[in-house]
């Protein structure tokens, strides 16, 4: 409670001081009213709608018309269309323009042809095609163009590059190709499953476990009776009980490579052991072992 009162005092103080700090925004009533965020940017302003006004329409965009002080404009993810770009024809100071992920197409690009200072143009994920190339060639200051996920052809991009040798065109990856490769790879097992060797119980002690790399063992009990699973500890090699595996059952056990797993019968009489390896593996406990009568 005390805290919330303190907060309220702070908030009140902040509101009193707010005009001092946000003078810039107050000078832009039309843009801020349309949901735009305005910040100072060396000799002009940057205007952004992409995080604050995704509902921005062509009508709302009229607030920027004639503003030659706008250096950077971000319209990503807004609801503007080709008709809205008409408001940009007068932005002669514009150097950076984000139109990605909007509904614009070739018809709108015509409005941009006069932006002689434009250096950065982002058009990824729009409906533009090679029909826009004629207008894009007019943008003689353009340094960086983004056309991933558009219908501009490889040949079209090459022609644009020839016309504007200083332009960097970022075309991005072919997603269909990547998805096809990923689907193909998913079908191949990444690490082949191997069968672990069964060491029947004998006079020799099973080796102690040594920590290695994470792996997985799938135990399969082929006996007609349940067995017990023990892990041989590091160092002195004591046995630690982990699980019962019922007759005919399978158990998935995460472990490390070079671990020793001892199998006993229900009375904890040893039957044999497995030693884990780096690959995921199958450890098949045989139907009968040597010390059992057939």
């Amino acid at each position: 409670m005390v805290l919330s009162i303190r907060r309220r005092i702070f908030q009140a103080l902040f509101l009193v001081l707010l005009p001092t700090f946000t003078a810039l925004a107050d000078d832009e009533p039309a843009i801020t009213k349309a949901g735009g965020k305005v910040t100072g940017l060396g000799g002009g302003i940057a205007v952004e709608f992409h995080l604050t006004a995704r509902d921005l329409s062509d009508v709302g965009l009229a607030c920027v018309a004639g503003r030659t002080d706008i250096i950077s404009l971000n319209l990503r993810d807004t609801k503007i269309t080709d008709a809205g770009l008409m408001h940009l024809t007068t932005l002669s100071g514009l150097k950076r323009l984000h139109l990605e992920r909007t509904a614009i197409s070739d018809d709108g690009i015509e409005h941009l042809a006069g932006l002689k200072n434009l250096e950065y143009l982002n058009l990824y994920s729009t409906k533009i095609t090679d029909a826009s190339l004629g207008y894009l060639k007019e943008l003689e200051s353009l340094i960086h163009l983004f056309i991933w996920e558009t219908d501009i052809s490889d040949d079209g991009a090459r022609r644009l590059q020839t016309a504007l040798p200083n332009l960097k065109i970022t075309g991005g990856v072919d997603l269909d190709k990547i998805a096809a490769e990923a689907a193909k790879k998913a079908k191949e097992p990444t690490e082949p499953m191997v069968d672990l060797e069964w060491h029947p119980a004998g006079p020799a002690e099973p080796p102690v476990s040594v920590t290695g790399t994470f792996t997985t063992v799938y135990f399969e009990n082929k006996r007609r009776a349940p067995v017990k699973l023990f892990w041989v500890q590091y160092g002195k090699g004591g046995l630690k009980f982990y699980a019962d595996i019922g007759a005919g059952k399978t158990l998935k056990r995460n472990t490390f490579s070079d671990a020793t797993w001892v199998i006993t019968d229900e009375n904890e009489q040893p039957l044999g052991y497995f030693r884990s390896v780096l690959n995921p593996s199958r450890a098949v406990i045989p139907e009968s072992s040597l010390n059992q009568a057939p």
Partner: protein
Amino acid sequence: MTGLTLPTFFKMQAQAAGVATKARSCIVLYTWGGMSHLESFDPKPEGPSATRGEFGAIPTATPGMQFCEHLPLLAKHSEKLAVVRSVHHGQGGHQGGMYVTLTGHNPEGGLKAKSRKSWPSLPAMISRFHDPHANTPGAVRLPYSMYDNGTLMAGEYGGWLGSDYDPILMRTPGGEEYAGVTRYTDRELNLKLHLDSGRLRDRRALLEELDHRLGKSQAYDQLDRFRQMAADMLLGSPVRDAYDLEQEDPRVRAMYGDHICGQSLLLSRRLIEAGVPVVQALCSAGDLAGGGGDNWDTHRGHFAKMKDRLLPLFDHSVSALLTDLEQRGLLDETLVVFLTDFGRTPKINNNGGRDHHPGVYSVAFAGGGIRGGQVYGASDPSGTEPLSGACSPADLHATVFKAMGIDHHSRLTDQQGRPFPICEGEPLALF
């Protein structure tokens, strides 16, 4: 204005200093456990045979720059990367190494996770300077907290900035988990948004769950903040949409790979697109657990583990992130920072592993106005100590601050109003 101690005031002051913001957002990729510099960004194919290791080096897209042979995809992105091969500090343990890396300061006395005496993490400090948009957290961590043998580590929280600046932990909703141990605590807000079940729409149910998770012992301010977060998420925050990876093009999801590492990096991109200023993604299992599991603490079986599990996954996921940021035009306004606890010893131990080595190691930067295709500093022929350009985690912080348009001489105040300079280092000439 005398006596004004509003955090906002300091934000304003920092902005008024006239530093032009270059990067608008930051993604911190953290390889928990200590990534070997010798098997990543600083291979030594001509090094002494006792320390050289089993892998070769491959050329990158940048003439003269070589990477480990198991980073073939990242090698194609070298023109975006500034590799720093001469970082060093004096912390030989994971807790100390992570703390100095993420806070820029050596630990003093005993460390306890979430202690308000600790220094704030780099993401926490960045979030203090960059106003997030409405309904958006200032900093997010994915997908786990850092643990060592079951103990939660100090260093990735808000520290003396207070709980308002603890980066929010989110669990990545997709992808195969890292092998090994990963822990979650009830003390943290694990935003498990049950987007399909529609539970999210039931505001009361989520608030009740939060109450249950936080318990009665928590400070009210923390509870208030989490309540607010929950309400924001419910009321259609852009973060909620960003978190729902089902909304992403399935082909893009495939590009990042069906693993929690790739999906966390995809989520990082979606979060910065939604206006989150800084995201830290852990590229490792959450608990080092004595060197078992998929983390970078490779004391045993170093080469097999690096080749088969750690490097291919890292190579694929990080390359996908860089490709995606570039093709969306986000790379110039997004700073990507690769950090780790420390490097690994040149000497290979009796278990075929490499041990902790803070004497020299490598980090990297991409995007955010950093000039790619360059190597800063060098280690000696065996990779034991810096040969040139020796620098500290504090210098890396100063570099990040500069890229983010934050004056690295700025001061921040703790909860008692005491001012602290945020950084004791100087920016590296990477711009």
